[in-house]
Structure formats: C-alpha cells, structure tokens
C-alpha cells in the first residue's frame, strides 16, 4: 500500500469537553475522509512542557538543539507531516502558552528552519509541509479581534508559513464571538471545519 499523506493535529486546551476538542474531532474526521493518516497530539494530555529550558536555550545554536525526548518525538512527527493543523482557543489574541511553547521548543534550527552557512540568514525548514491550517475560537467578535490584529493567526499564516516551501497553502478557520455563540452557530462551524478539511 502506498504511503498516505500524514496530517499532524495539535490540540491545545486543558478541558477535554471544550469546543476546541470538538473542533479537533471535526478536523480529524475531515482529514480522514480526505485520505490522510492522522496523528493527534493533545498537548495538555501528553504533559508537554511549555517553557523552553535553560539547557535548551544554550543548545539552541549548537549542533544538537533538541535535548528532550518528548521534543525529539514532536520533531519526528513534524518531519513526516504533509500538513500541520493547529487547534486552540485564542487567548490574549494569541496561542495558549502551551502551544506557543511547542513553537518555541520544537521549531528549532534544523526542524523549523536552518541558518544559511554562508550568510547566517534564516532558511525554511518545513519544506515537507504542504498545508498549514489554523482552527481557533475567540471570545471577542471578529471586529474586536481584527482591531487587535488576530496575532495568533499571523504567527501561523505568516511567520510559520515563511518557514515552509513556496507552494505551501494556508487555511484559517476562525470562530469569533464565542462568548455569545448559540449552539446552532457552533454546529455550523464544526461542519465547516469537517467539510473543509475533507477537501484539503
């Protein structure tokens, strides 16, 4: 059997009964329908450490920046991934600390990017990744989030996008005004995520 493309789904919410987990479930169902193998990493359930350690910081510019086996495992999943899907609640216009920490600790030199030996400039490292997908819910309305600039979205669709190859596509599914959303609106969002990812 030919190798099927692999999707890595990162989920960052402390409560298993959250809307974020429901969104992740919809994403996984859609990705499976699209014919992908899916790896789900629930950052809270797996006890992922958010903060980069002193040891990691000092190893960052050295030959082997990964010192924690849990990070090595994440780096392996990233290198095998054809798509990476981030599912999280937007807090303070950005990713929850545990997901920001995943970026800080896993997207190190030779995973997320590499330094060009001649110029010292940053070069993309995620050339295997063809799709970056962000799925997030925000308490505030789209207008308020827009005024503050939806910074978590920018981090994924611009900063992380720059670490990928030039053909990589980005998609964003944002659920806004969560604090006031009725069940019907939530259901429609989950539907949109599942149908959208089935066609990825």
């Amino acid at each position: 059997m030919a190798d099927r493309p692999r999707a890595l789904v990162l989920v960052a919410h402390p409560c298993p009964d959250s809307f974020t987990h429901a969104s992740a479930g919809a994403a996984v169902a859609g990705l499976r329908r699209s014919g992908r193998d899916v790896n789900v990493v629930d950052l809270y359930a797996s006890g992922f450490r958010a903060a980069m350690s002193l040891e990691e910081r000092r190893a960052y510019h050295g030959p082997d920046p990964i010192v924690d086996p849990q990070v090595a495992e994440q780096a392996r999943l990233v290198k095998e991934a054809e798509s990476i899907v981030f599912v999280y609640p937007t807090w303070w216009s950005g990713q929850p600390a545990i997901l920001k920490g995943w970026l800080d600790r896993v997207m190190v030199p030779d995973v997320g990017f590499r330094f060009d030996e001649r110029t010292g400039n940053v070069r993309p490292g995620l050339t295997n990744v063809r799709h970056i997908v962000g799925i997030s819910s925000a308490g505030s309305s789209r207008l308020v989030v827009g005024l503050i600039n939806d910074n978590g979205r920018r981090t994924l669709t611009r900063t992380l996008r720059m670490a990928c190859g030039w053909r990589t596509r980005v998609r964003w599914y944002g659920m806004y005004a969560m604090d006031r959303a009725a069940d019907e609106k939530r259901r429609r969002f989950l539907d949109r995520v599942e149908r959208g990812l089935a066609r990825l």
Partner: protein
Amino acid sequence: MVYCHPDPESFASAARDHTVTGLKASGHEVRLIDLYSESFEPALTAEERRTHRDPGVSDPTLQGYTDDLRWADSLVLVYPTWWSGQPAMLKGWFDRVWVAGVAWDVNRRNRLSPRLRNIRRLAVVTTHGSPKLVNALQGEGGKRLAMRSIRSMCWWRARTTWCAMYDIDHADEADRAAFLERVERTFAGWG
C-alpha cells in the same frame, strides 16, 4: 517589570539591568518579576479554565502578581521575541494572571471593561533575530499583542514605548552596546 529569559547570562538580562538603571535614574521604584527564576508555570490549568469567569486568580501562588499589577503605574516587559511573539513563559503569565477580576470585568452589557486603569505606561524591551523587514512581513504579532491586546486593559490613554533591537543574528558588540545605551536612556527619560 516582568523579565523573561531562561539564561541568566543572556543579552536580555543585560537589557533588563539597563532598564532598571534607567527607571531608577528617573525616580521610579521598581518591582522585578523574573518568571524563570521564580519557576512560573505557564500552562493555564483545566480548573482555571472552568472558573475563568469568576473574579480573581484561583491559584493562591499567583496572588502576588495581581498585587504587583495593582501597585504599578507603569508596566515594562523585557523578553526575546521568538516566533514573532512572547516566549511561552511570558504568554502564560498573561493567560493565567490577566484574568477576570484582575485585568478585566464583565459589565452589565456583557462587555469587557478594563480593570488595570492604574497602569498609565506600557513598555516593551525586546530583541529579534531577524531584520525589521522580515518582522514587518510576519505582522509583528508580539508587538501588537502587547501594544493592543494587553494595553486595552490599562488606562485608556496609556502611553506605549516600543524599544526593540532587530537582526541580532547579525549584530556585533557595538550594535549591542548601542542598544543597551538606548534602553537606559529611554527609561531615564521617563518623567
């Protein structure tokens, strides 16, 4: 002042020291929070999420931070910019400490109203590995998070100061020294 870097010998620690010197020169009393040395735990817990609409921090070890926030009339954040934003450690400090009843209240019309109106000045001292142009293309998420999202819970006319070094990957000793001098001068000039 909130300082965030894992390495006590980092350039960020030098920036921290120059910030403190500048603030003292302009007559400020400084309380310094060093998130790494205090072993702050940045991941918001399930319990905190379930009670996030109840006023106040549920973890008593966070109480000191809320007292500091109420005491201050300026807030200065010193950190390296990683992946366009604050390190997870500092992001978690916002997630866990800037909660209902501390940073904001929900008013009768179900809207947020800012609570940290005692904070009249907000400053960021940070370093970027990449050049300014690259950061501009990336959308400067960390800058906007601090200067818009965090600022929105402070006094409505709070003034902001962005003191940033770009392209530190290509900087030499003279560039670094010039930045530290600029940091100190900036805060010494705070009347």
